[in-house]
């Protein structure tokens, strides 16, 4: 059958598209099947109220890999930034905001000691983040098994850490496993500054600032930025969907076929290898290789089915922690909100509400017990300030990540959503008096909504928690961390694999390389 040469990719999320584009470049016959009616997965721009469009999930692009942008010529496929280098504004109700740009304070008041410590902190963390960043484009090594190449790969990782120098290496090994709260407590005094930095560590995760591992999540975030295309925080023109459109265009230009509106019901097997997929409509498509951009649990437990897998492996996949805690708020506004004593041109920066780490920790405490935070922490953007295509003239969209909202609230999801929206709007009103009256339409996506809309099990943005026990060779689970699954011909290419989530694309590219290496080995 000629279809043996065909490669099917399930899901046109950004990683699926990156993987498709690289395989198409390598002259493979690639077919991408997307369940929804547009490409992008969670990286889309959609209309949530008439005339108002917004990046529906992730809203700041900072991790998109520089190499991918260059190699796939995304600029020529239409990718451009509406704003390439956002500042971070730590909002204060009284108006004593801090405007931060990397390790520099651009506006606001900080004691000299904190100002110096900030530069030092940023510098130090960036160096550590680069070590992690170097691993993004590598297949994680297996340790204790495999052959000489695995040993070399593991040694490379060790060498990268050693190259930091003796004292930095010691510092890296000291803080890599601990929590951001203690690290910030050692370095800074000003609560508002610590709050803003702590938020970087817990955004999109299931961790509070006091949870160990939160230094690692902060470094992961920063590492994407270090290898990212702009080196800073950027807003793509046309929203996050524009990134996906450019990737799809690159894949098609290489010869890949992308079909939307084709939900896959199952992955079909023939003996111990994949034979293709079956669509929900009943249509069967044959393929020699199937790559899934879906999350690990959906791919292996639903599409393949536990009965085709070894029990211990199923057990590990089931235990892959993937319950999200981040909600997404979209507001259609009939004017620009006025934040207390914040100059209008600053309102277009990345605004954060996280007055201090204890505040974030309290917000987290409620979520542990199945309640939404009464006083949540927020990351806010108003992209329509830089990109007039997103809202009607004179009007604006506000997009915010709101933490924390549990995946399975004790109250019903509807009740929890209504209350959380009310609390969040109340909080915003305190920072931007009058904002509530400007709201024309609103939408709040809880993790359960994110699961339903984007078909991500658990509604976790990274497909699964980024923690020391779920990174590198442990992601998603030991024995399946090198993109190839324990079913012949089946691969994973999504955020559930190394190096994880964020609109980065590295997982898709690494998976494409793993598929090509697998062909050579066969």
């Amino acid at each position: 059958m000629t279809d043996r040469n065909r490669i099917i990719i399930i899901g046109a999320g950004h990683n699926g598209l990156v993987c498709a584009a690289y395989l198409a470049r390598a002259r493979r016959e690639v077919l991408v099947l997307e369940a929804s009616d547009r490409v992008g997965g969670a990286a889309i721009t959609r209309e949530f109220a008439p005339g108002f469009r917004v990046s529906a999930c992730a809203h700041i692009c900072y991790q998109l890999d520089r190499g991918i942008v260059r190699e796939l010529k995304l600029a020529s496929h239409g990718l451009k930034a509406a704003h390439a280098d956002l500042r971070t504004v730590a909002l204060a109700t009284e108006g004593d905001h801090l405007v931060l740009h990397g390790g520099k304070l651009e506006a606001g008041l900080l004691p000299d000691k904190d100002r110096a410590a900030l530069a030092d902190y940023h510098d130090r963390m960036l160096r550590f983040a680069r070590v992690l960043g170097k691993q993004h484009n590598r297949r994680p090594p297996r340790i204790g098994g495999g052959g000489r190449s695995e040993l070399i790969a593991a040694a490379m990782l060790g060498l990268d850490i050693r190259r930091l120098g003796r004292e930095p290496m010691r510092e890296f090994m000291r803080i890599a496993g601990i929590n951001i709260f203690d690290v910030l407590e050692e370095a800074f005094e000003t609560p508002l500054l610590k709050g803003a930095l702590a938020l970087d560590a817990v955004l999109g995760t299931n961790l509070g600032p006091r949870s160990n591992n939160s230094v690692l999540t902060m470094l992961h975030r920063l590492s994407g930025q270090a290898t990212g295309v702009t080196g800073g925080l950027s807003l793509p023109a046309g929203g996050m969907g524009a990134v996906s459109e450019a990737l799809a265009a690159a894949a098609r230009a290489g010869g890949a076929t992308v079909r939307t509106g084709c939900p896959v019901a199952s992955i079909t097997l023939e003996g111990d290898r994949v034979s293709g997929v079956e669509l929900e409509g009943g249509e069967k498509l044959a393929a020699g290789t199937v790559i899934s951009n879906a999350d690990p649990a959906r791919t292996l437990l639903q599409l393949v089915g536990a009965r085709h897998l070894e029990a211990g492996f199923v057990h590990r996949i089931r235990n892959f922690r993937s319950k999200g805690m981040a909600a997404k708020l979209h507001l259609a506004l009939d004017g620009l909100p006025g934040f207390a004593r914040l100059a209008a041109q600053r309102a277009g920066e990345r605004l954060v509400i996280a007055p201090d780490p204890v505040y974030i920790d309290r917000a987290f405490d409620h979520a542990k017990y199945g309640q939404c935070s009464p006083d949540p922490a927020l990351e806010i953007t108003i992209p329509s300030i830089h990109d007039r295509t997103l809202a009607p003239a004179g009007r604006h969209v506000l997009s915010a990540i709101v933490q924390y909202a549990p995946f399975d609230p004790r109250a019903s999801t509807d009740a929890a959503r209504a209350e959380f929206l009310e609390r969040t709007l109340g909080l915003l009103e305190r920072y931007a008096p009058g904002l509530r009256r400007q709201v024309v339409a609103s939408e709040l996506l809880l993790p359960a909504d994110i699961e339903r809309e984007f078909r991500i099990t658990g509604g976790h943005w990274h497909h699964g928690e980024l923690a020391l026990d779920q990174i590198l060779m442990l992601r998603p689970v030991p024995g399946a961390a090198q993109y190839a699954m324990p079913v012949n011909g089946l691969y994973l290419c999504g955020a559930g694999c190394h190096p994880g989530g964020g609109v980065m694309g590295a997982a898709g590219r690494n998976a494409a390389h793993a598929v090509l290496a697998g062909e050579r080995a066969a």
Partner: protein
Amino acid sequence: RPELFRDLELARHGLQVVPNRGAVTITISGDDIGNYTDEDVQRREFARHNPRDGDAYHRYSTDVMRQCKFIRPLLLRTPPDPTSFKPRDIRELIHLGREFTKFGEQFIYDTLRFYTMSIADFLGEYFESDLIKAHLSGSGIIGSAMGVYSPGTAYVLLHHYMGDVDGSIGAWGFARGGMGAVSNAIASAYRSFGGEIATDAPVERVIVRNGRVAGVATANGNEYRAKIVVSNLDPKRTFTRLFDEGDLNPEFVKRARNFKIRGSSGKLNIALDGLPEFPALGRDNPLRFGDIHFLDSLEKMERAYDDWKNGTWSKEPYLDLLIPSMTDPTMTPPGKHFMSVFVQYVPPKIHGRDWTDQDRDGFKNTVLDQIGRYSPNFKSLIRHVQVRTPRELEDEVGLTEGNIFQGELTMDQLLFNRPFPGYAQYRGPVKGFYMCGSGTHPGGGVMAAPGANAAREILLDLKRPSLVPEGWQDD
């Protein structure tokens, strides 16, 4: 460590360790779940609560025991410095690598995960019953300033399991005559080799001359000259109180100040006129001899931690309650009993200020009320209560902030990071100065391994033959 027990002939010096007879958790609804030494009995006990958890028990105990077997030989070894290129460090790193890889690939991954997960997630991989998870999770938080949902607590469980009594791994024991008997036996062994001990001699300062130690000065004005000074105090106390700041590198002083040694536990010692009854257990249940806990769920454990974070003692604390006089009648007059209650969480300060006597009484009543809810005749039997908050633990025993492990067991303070990166080999920042307390590898718990490891390093520096057991000998 049993190696030291044998090597120092502690039995000859009067130490008897009686194995602990299990533990039990009682719920408010009168249900209970116990620990039994017989694996099959244990499986049935778990299966009674959840049939699948009964099956999971074997998998759980095998995995934990394998971890204990891996870590045990490392307790009596000096941790290597991974930044060093000295032959000894490289040899030690390779040794560590071999030990690590000899159990196979799967074990390596399990270990990496074990060391970094929360106890709640870790137990969740095996068990479904919330009560079983709560029952087992206590060992993940005792003595630590973390909650059951905090990543890193799975390791703390291991730390509690790695002891062994009479060759059974993970077993706990009572020292006949109380924990003081352990110290007395070791002191007696030390004196039998010609060692001297001066009591009532609190050291006030370490004397440093020309960049090396010259001795110590005590509070009563005596000076003892010595070329080698070893501190059994915690690292924070040692370097921020005994040293003149000018004798140390400022970076090092900063490290010492930032050393995490937050207290999280307190203790009540209660003299009783008789034996309290626990209706949930019944009169003849052998589990009464062991540790008793009052728990219903992981959530209750975590909420106790939230109170600590908010600067107050837990309103529903986690108790580890023992009546040692049932096992060892020598501890009390006939017919009377002694109850020892370990309490978590108890913060070193209340809302940022020092403990007051009212706080202490409030704390005491919180604990007594909880016990009273499970034992109706308990309160009428109370003769005397001694309360130990972190304040008393610090003032009387000298444990900074009342931390029982002389420093938290988190990744930044374990192995080659304990107590500080670059100082994990028992040598202090000044020539001739050493550390031998629980603040050094492998940390707290009455296992005496840090002391032995420090002695080995000192003998090495003195170019004397090492008499200290190293690694682990199976017999």
